[in-house]
């Protein structure tokens, strides 16, 4: 029996993004409408063509709840007058990318042919009244896995990710100079992205002088909350002949959880829960790490990017420090151009979907002044860490 890699039945037909910034004064619904309608238009479609809708994390995470998520699926369906055969809004799965993978699955099953997928954040607006909070504000008592973290002041993923960073510093010789290349590279690329939040030059001296958040992570190792929405339209490959742009196929998804899905119970401190979706993705792919032309790897914290570089096999476990030395390999003209729109560290915390948008932009050759040479044919996108992680391979054209 031929093995079904059903995600390949879907391709990215359109991308769209709202205004991106700090406290834009736009509602979460307005941002979402901007992105969704732009993506539908970019795909050469009209809203009536869309028969599926998917989002992460779904309803209940809007501005009033901290701005981690925008309006839920049914609210957006209603706001835009859509009539869909299938929809989904869910938090659990292969991190933010699960919303896209769900869309692929809807297409593969025949439940939908044109699925719009969006992710909205309004964390800048939500946090406008104070500093960036940790988890747990106003909670009477904590249950579930976070009860074993929050009572000890481990209130932010900064603390949980610092565990991995400290381990890599002590066991594998990672240094601030090497880790800092993630932030410096992001800033250099953000200078060529008009939507990026931070575009002024960042030097290694600036990085080394920054205040600590959770040692060894400093301010520039943490992404920047923003307001914005990003959307993609996924379509069935049998519509590709009509596509307005070169189709960007979903070549393979990585969704597995084989170890313990947890921020502090993962068995192997040298790796992280991205290890499993990475292996899973390569097991479904016809290409390998050496074939990847551009990488968009989650940088909610710089250290997560380091862990994805190792998990995806761009270097061995513990070898990312050497890989990052000097920053040349990850630059736009390097062997593995990384986070070419500035990532979340400088571009803004669009929370995974900004990376997807940039991967498609690069594969289409539409990167303008930040376009990497080629144009690239294979892009890797990774999202998440801790209890939730996932990755995708995207290709220019249908393989």
């Amino acid at each position, binding site marked *: 029996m031929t093995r079904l890699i059903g995600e390949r039945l879907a391709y990215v037909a359109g991308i769209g993004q709202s205004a991106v910034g700090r406290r834009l004064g736009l509602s979460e619904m307005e941002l979402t409408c901007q992105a969704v309608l732009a993506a539908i238009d970019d795909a050469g479609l009209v809203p009536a063509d869309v028969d599926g809708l998917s989002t992460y994390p779904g309803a209940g995470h809007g501005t009033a709840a901290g701005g981690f998520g925008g309006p839920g699926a049914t609210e957006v369906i209603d706001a835009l007058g859509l009539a869909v055969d299938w929809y989904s809004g869910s938090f659990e799965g292969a991190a933010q990318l699960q919303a896209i993978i769900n869309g692929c699955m809807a297409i593969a099953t025949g439940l939908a042919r044109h699925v719009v997928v969006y992710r909205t954040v309004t964390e800048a607006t939500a946090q406008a009244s104070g500093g*960036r*909070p*940790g988890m*747990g504000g106003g*909670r*009477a*008592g*904590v*249950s579930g*896995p976070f*009860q*074993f*973290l*929050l*009572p*000890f*002041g*481990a*209130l*932010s993923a*900064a*603390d949980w990710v*610092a*565990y*991995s*960073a*400290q*381990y890599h510093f*002590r*066991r594998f010789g990672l240094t601030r100079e090497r880790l800092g290349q993630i932030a410096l590279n992001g800033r250099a690329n953000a200078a060529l992205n008009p939507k990026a939040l931070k575009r002024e030059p960042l030097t290694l001296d600036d990085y080394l002088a920054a*205040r*600590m*958040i*959770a*040692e*060894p*992570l400093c301010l520039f190792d943490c992404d920047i909350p923003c307001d914005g929405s990003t959307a993609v339209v996924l379509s069935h490959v049998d519509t590709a002949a009509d596509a307005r742009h070169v189709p960007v196929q979903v070549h393979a998804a990585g969704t597995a959880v084989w170890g313990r899905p947890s921020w*502090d*119970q993962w*068995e192997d*401190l040298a790796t992280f829960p991205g290890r499993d979706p990475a292996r899973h993705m390569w097991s479904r792919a016809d290409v390998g790490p050496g074939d990847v032309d551009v990488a968009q790897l989650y940088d909610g914290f710089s250290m997560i990017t380091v862990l994805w570089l190792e998990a995806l096999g761009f270097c061995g476990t513990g070898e990312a420090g050497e890989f990052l030395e000097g920053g040349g390999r990850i630059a736009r003209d390097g062997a593995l151009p990384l986070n070419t729109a500035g990532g979340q560290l400088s571009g803004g915390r669009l929370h995974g979907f900004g990376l997807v948008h940039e991967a498609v932009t690069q594969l289409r050759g539409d990167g303008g002044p930040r376009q990497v040479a080629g144009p690239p044919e294979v892009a890797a996108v990774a999202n998440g860490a801790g209890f939730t992680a996932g990755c995708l391979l995207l290709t220019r054209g249908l393989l």
Partner: protein
Amino acid sequence: MGGRRRVGDVLPLRLKPFLDPDNRAFWTGGAGGDLMVHRCDDCGWWTHPPRPRCRRCLSTRVRPRRTAGRGRVATFTVNHQPWIPGSDLYIVALVELVEQAGLFLTTNLVDVDGSEVELGMEVEVVFEEAGDGIHLPLFRPVGRR
């Protein structure tokens, strides 16, 4: 580095766990000076977080058992950002208990400066009373007063 704190003086305010039948012994055992962790009576496997099934053999014969209250620092961070307003530097650590490889607890280290902490450092439990019968297991270097 920095972050040397004493029991009762790590944070100005702590979030508390919501007690349930599974976690009660872990969070309250410190009243008697004991760090209690779920262990399987059938296969001997320690399971944390505490849950009603052994995560190795799925036996229901799992119950809180006394541990030695000793472990090693697996990794750690000195937290600087005041997520809780008014907090000073403090150490968040992942401690691997001596009972089983990979039996991890997130905790705070006390009576030690961040600059002194090494991976593998031997530590012992010391409890901080948090009210409502809850005793948070913190750790300090073995023999430290």
